[in-house]
């Protein structure tokens, strides 16, 4: 029988690592494409029109998700290891920060959509 390890903390650990590896694979490609702006601008334009396809937009959603998950995972780890607070204190603090992000984020979206 396989070792049973599926609990939230372990899943958070795996998500953090997998998103980190995926971002590490993405970044060299990202910089390579950006370098076309200097070397071959027409190729960059070609790529940008390719990136307008809906499928690529979905992939971009995945990228932003990876970034968000990796950042949240890093903040979680730092809070867990560097703040000698009790678990309920950390839960409350994380909830407050999340709520603040939600409010300020929706305000920001409203501002830029006008």
């Amino acid at each position, binding site marked *: *029988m*396989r*070792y*049973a*390890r599926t*609990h939230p*903390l*372990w899943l958070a*650990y795996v998500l953090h690592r997998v998103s980190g590896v995926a971002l590490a694979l993405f970044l060299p490609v990202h910089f390579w494409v950006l370098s076309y702006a200097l070397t071959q601008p027409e190729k960059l334009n070609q790529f940008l029109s390719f990136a307008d396809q809906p499928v690529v937009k979905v992939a971009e959603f995945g990228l932003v998700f990876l970034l968000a998950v990796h950042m949240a995972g890093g903040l979680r*780890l730092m809070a*867990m*290891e*560097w703040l*000698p607070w009790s678990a309920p204190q950390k839960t409350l603090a994380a909830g407050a920060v999340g709520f603040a992000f939600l409010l300020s984020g929706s305000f920001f979206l409203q501002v830029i959509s006008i």
Partner: protein
Amino acid sequence: MPEEAEKLEVSVWRGGADGAYETFQVPAYENQTILDVVSWIQQYADPTLTYRFACRVGMCGSCAMMVNGRPRWTCRTHIRTVVQDGAVQVGPLRNLPVIKDLAADMDPFFDKWVAAGGVHSPSATRHDPMEAIDPQETDRAEASAGIECINCSVCYAACDTVAGNPDYLGPAALQRAWTLYNDAKHDDRVNILDAVSGNGGCHNCHSMGSCTVYCPNELDPMSAIAGLKRETTRNFFRKRR
């Protein structure tokens, strides 16, 4: 006599590292722990079954085993909480060498307690006046959080970092080190930081949290290791100044 209509299908590990699971039919009773089931097999089905237990009440930490792939104290785990479709699988603790059947070799586990600086070194002799310790004090509260450890090795078996790095001291030894580090009556507190910051030390921990999730006494080795990470880092920068 209770009716023996129902049977449990219990597969237990037999042999050493290259052994295999053997299945036994064990009568199911209303009140039965995993340890009761294992004992039934040894007493009525196969007297050569090897396993380890002592107190049967969750005090001694001898009877931990893998139950359905999860480390558990078998004397305090009711069979009803783990049985799946009338079957349960019991194996020797993970991350430790198997001696035979369900008995794991605990030597590496206890050696690491010593390696992590877990041996108490008193700060005073019996001739000195007794030091007054306030139980509410922050350091003492940190130390008290870990003292109920029964050395059962459930956290050690649960830890994937131990599985990946045999030199890693593991959650129990590091929690013991954190307890002593916060104990005002321990003489050797700075040496603990040296002992836990080497190759197999606290900085190997990936905070997967299986130790804290599976600890039968509901202790929190993961936070104790986080404490060691903070103190060793602080100590590192203090030294450089």
